[in-house]
């Protein structure tokens, strides 16, 4: 009977995620750039939420669309209301996994690729993007640059638009993660 209870306890504990493997941030940064001959547009979001499970190499990014800050407030309003429809679709997400084995215990920079589901404007696509992962002093810094085609995510640009917007948008991600505290 005693043995059984021990077995019971062991089984019940196995598989619970060790908190030591969860890294997160709520202040990651995501920026985007739209370049055309007429106008350059850029915006930055310094409140990106990221969580990484180093045990499984899985990660989740949550981006609140309304937290993108533009130099021009009117542009920000158009971005939210007309293009991203952030009242209807308040966030963009990435949920995926690193394809490489990563030694999180060693300091250094590693080139990695991540594959997963990228959801923007309520349209989801399976993507694989390149990036780097930097490990230093117990921090994990994820860095990536990739492009997004607006039409892939049903983001319409009106024909008569006076603010010229590129069809392909460059996105930069820079998120230092720290060990998640409960």
């Amino acid at each position, binding site marked *: *009977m005693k043995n*059984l*209870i021990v*077995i*019971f*306890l062991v*089984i*019940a504990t*196995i*598989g*619970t*995620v060790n908190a030591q493997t*969860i890294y*997160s*941030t*709520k202040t990651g940064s995501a920026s985007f750039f739209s370049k055309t001959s007429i106008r350059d547009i850029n915006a930055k979001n310094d*409140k*990106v*939420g*990221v*969580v990484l*499970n180093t045990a499984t190499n*899985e990660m*989740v990014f*949550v981006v*609140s669309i*309304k*937290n993108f800050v533009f130099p*021009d*407030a*009117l542009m920000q*309003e*158009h971005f*939210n*209301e*007309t293009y991203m*429809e952030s*009242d*209807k679709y*308040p*966030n963009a997400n990435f*949920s995926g996994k690193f394809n490489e084995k990563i030694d999180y215990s060693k300091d250094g920079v590693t080139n990695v690729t991540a594959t997963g589901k990228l959801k923007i404007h309520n349209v989801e696509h399976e993507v694989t993007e390149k990036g780097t992962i930097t490990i230093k002093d117990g921090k994990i810094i994820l860095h990536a640059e990739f492009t997004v085609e607006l039409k892939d995510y049903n983001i319409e640009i*009106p024909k*008569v*638009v*006076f*603010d010229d917007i590129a069809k392909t948008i460059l996105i930069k991600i820079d998120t230092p993660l720290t060990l*998640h505290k409960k």
Partner: protein
Amino acid sequence: MRNKYKLSVLFLGLLLGIIKPMIAQEDWKSLVSLDSLNTSGNTSATFKTTRLINGQSVETVKKHTLDFRVAHRFGNESLGIHSLYGLDAASDIRLALEYGISDRLTIGFSRSRLAENLEGLIKYRLLIQKENGAMPLSVTLFANSVITSVMDYTATADYAGDYAIFAHRMSYTYQVLIARKFSRIFSFQIMPSLVHRNFITNPSDKNDIYSLGAGGRLKFSKRSAIVVDYFYNINPSNSTRSAGSGITYYNPLGIGWEIETGGHVFTIMFSNAAGLIENEFIPNTTDSWRKRGFKFSFDISRNFKL
């Protein structure tokens, strides 16, 4: 019996062993939720531009942005085919420059064709509605002062004229604009207003006209909306004049279609008011919708980031 008990403990243990990590797996993924990321939470775009149809909206011009506005109001539809239902006439034309000193404070200047009114205006966004409900309303204060610069033809041998004293040319509007964005597509606003005129032509008229305005915007596609506004005059000049004094005053009602293109906002509308500024359309609307006294009108707003 004992075996059965052993088995059930084992089974329960296995079950927990399987379920627990499944729950935990989902758990860590929801450690960052959208709610924990949102910060400012200000409701944006209660209205698409700083005007409804006739009246002001709670919106102010964005910081360091110049709003160039052109409005044209044609003549009464009742003028008929020989005036192309009013399109040959111009009741009023207004050109305005309005500038956002900050996201909350706007100053502006305009000139209207009607009575050659020169207007200086100031608008201050006092409260901004919050998405989390902490602030349910937006409140904006509006004031203008207007110089009626039209030539004075009223002078005669015995009378120095209506505008013999410069102060007679001055009039003022004060408004408290209170709005709420009820949903992504619907916003509503009320506008307690006071128009003060230093000079009135008919001695039985009141210098101060109190009015309560209401208006709303209903979005029906990504870029267009139906906008309506109405002002109920509490003490119109009719109320103080003796019957048969010649002119009947009406409450101004406007209805329009607003189209936003990114940088421009076009509004095409119908209104029974002739004037395009509060100092005219609140106290001086003398046409009635019922007598085909409505006029086609358009308003274009173009924003320049300075």
